[in-house]
């Protein structure tokens, strides 16, 4: 094995690829820009929309209540909602978003409450619609407060303590570090994007170095040089791997910086102010995610190189490789789903195993046994794919496919 020849091929491919706009775009521009655009961009837009929806004073229709002036007056005095006159087609108006919600006050409400009868107040809402939900929430809060007030008055009139209605308080307390909470919430996104970019970063160089060479007629030029085909494929493979890992590294760094910058921007914009979550990835997690990604990048690089070599042209190679993204996106999405936890069986499924373990790592958990199993199995798959790529480079019917 002459590593000098592999190095010569690698250096040439690196120089050549860095002058290819498509490769540079997929290797550098996409990983740097994708995360800020998806997180900060989408986050800013959604926070702005959410904030605007919260600032709106919802129009609420009150149905009935003419015989209950006390509750009606209290409702009208509420500054958070705007009361509109009752109309029979209120359901349609909610559905057409002309009003946000409606509240039906039962007949003789004031008197019934005074008597201590059980009555039901119904709030009509457009389920799933954000602004309607805000309107309904405000009405619901009003009636909850109103009910609590009635209870307090009753206890007071009987000279009973207020805590009689609430003998104890229930409280949820987070005992996990904010970094871990943030990691649990966003941890699924990290492998999803990094793995996807790891693939797309390798895709263009893999096509360019195989089908691209066939299309441009340089494959025969290089095959008549004394470099062995094993050295040739290894040099090309190392270039594709470099692109894949570099893309993954940029994606991870971009993600880390996006979380820091994004949190500050979103906190400033959000009317709710800070969520208290630490949306950040520790350096240790970055290093370990990257380590776990390496065998996967080897697998991607070798597989893409082998598949693209079959194609006669750039276009044909693209049509072979594009569907491959589905096989990568699907397991990555599965890892984001709640309740899918890492186990020995899942540790053997390529892509899904790395997605799941990266999610754990970002959340601050290091399952060393599974990490070793995943690393070993991924290395095995990667070695298999590389062996196939080397074998295909020896086959005349693949190299000179017409």
């Amino acid at each position, binding site marked *: 094995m002459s590593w000098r020849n592999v190095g010569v091929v690698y250096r040439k491919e690196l120089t050549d690829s860095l002058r290819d706009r498509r490769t540079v775009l997929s290797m550098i521009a996409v990983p740097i820009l994708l995360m800020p655009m998806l997180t900060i961009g989408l986050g800013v837009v959604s926070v702005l929309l959410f904030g605007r929806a919260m600032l709106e004073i919802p129009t609420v229709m009150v149905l009935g209540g003419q015989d209950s002036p006390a509750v009606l007056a209290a409702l009208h005095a509420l500054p958070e909602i705007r009361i509109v006159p009752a109309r029979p087609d209120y359901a349609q108006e909610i559905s057409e978003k002309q009003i946000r919600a409606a509240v039906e006050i039962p007949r003789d409400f004031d008197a019934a409450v005074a008597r201590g009868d059980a009555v039901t107040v119904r709030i009509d809402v457009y389920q799933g619609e954000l602004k309607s939900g805000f309107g309904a929430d405000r009405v619901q809060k009003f009636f909850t407060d109103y009910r609590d007030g009635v209870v307090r008055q009753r206890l007071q009139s009987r000279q009973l303590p207020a805590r009689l209605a609430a003998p104890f308080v229930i409280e949820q307390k987070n005992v996990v570090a904010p970094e871990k909470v943030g990691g649990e919430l966003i941890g699924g996104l990290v492998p999803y994007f990094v793995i996807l970019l790891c693939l797309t970063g390798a895709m263009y160089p893999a096509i360019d170095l195989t089908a691209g060479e066939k299309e441009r*007629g340089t494959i025969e030029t290089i095959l*008549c040089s*004394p470099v*062995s085909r094993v050295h040739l494929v290894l040099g090309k493979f190392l270039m594709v791997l470099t692109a894949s890992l570099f893309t993954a590294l940029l994606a991870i760094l971009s993600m880390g910086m996006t979380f820091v910058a994004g949190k500050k921007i979103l906190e400033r914009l959000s009317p709710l102010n800070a969520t208290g979550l630490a949306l950040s990835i520790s350096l240790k997690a970055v290093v370990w995610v990257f380590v776990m990604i390496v065998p996967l990048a080897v697998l991607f690089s070798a597989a893409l190189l082998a598949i693209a070599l079959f194609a006669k042209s750039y276009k044909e190679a693209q049509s072979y490789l594009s569907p491959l993204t589905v096989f990568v996106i699907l397991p990555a999405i599965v890892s984001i789903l709640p309740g899918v936890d890492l186990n020995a069986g899942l540790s053997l499924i390529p892509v899904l195993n790395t997605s799941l373990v990266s999610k754990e790592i970002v959340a601050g958990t290091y399952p060393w046994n599974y990490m070793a199993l995943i690393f070993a199995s991924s290395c095995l798959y990667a070695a298999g794919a590389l062996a196939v790529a080397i074998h295909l480079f020896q086959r005349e019917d693949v190299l000179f496919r017409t």
Partner: protein
Amino acid sequence: MIEVNNLGKQFRDKQRGIFRAVDGVTFSCRPGQIYGLLGANGAGKTTTLRMLATILGPTTGSATVAGYDIVREPQKVRASVGFLSTATALYGRLTAQEMVEYFGRLHGLAEPRLHCNLDALFQRLGMNDFRDRRCDKLSTGMKQKVSIARTLVHDPSVMIFDEPTAGLDVLAARTIVGFIRECRETGKTVLFSTHLMSEAEKLCDTIGIIHNGRLMAEGTLGDLRERYLQNDLEDIFVRVVQA
């Protein structure tokens, strides 16, 4: 020196099944001589030359190039050969200098010798004006010069040309023809394939007529004229092929 003995190549094709692209070809070519393989398109010229350049492996027979066996010592064969065809394109994103340097390094040349060879070649071929220009920005003639420099950078003893002037204009073709003659004058073994009678007449010391993968006739132009009682090479070719 090239010695070809009963060389054959079979391919598997979806439409034709197994077919013989080259069938028992035998010939030899000495240093300081140009051997021309003359044949129509699909006659088996390119396959023969690709086997001798070890880009393809033979199915039957054997051959030695510069004393090395094409099956057992393919890397040594490639190290001794300069192969040029219209199919051997250049890397468009590399400069002329980078392109030649790359192949020099693949041939294992040490940096001082590589740069010495490269400077001499660029001077000789008049390439200094465009040595730092990317290959995809060069004219056809300039590209041909880069290809020539690429094949010569390791100073091979054997040159193989596969229809090197196909698709070139007159000026670019003249550069190539001149270069082939120069190779003979410097004592290199030159194997050359063409379907152009005029080129074969002008250049070749020995002509081998190949048809349907088989070497049908071989000799100097004078031998062939005498044997087939025709003066014009085209007439000789038609008689041989139709026989």
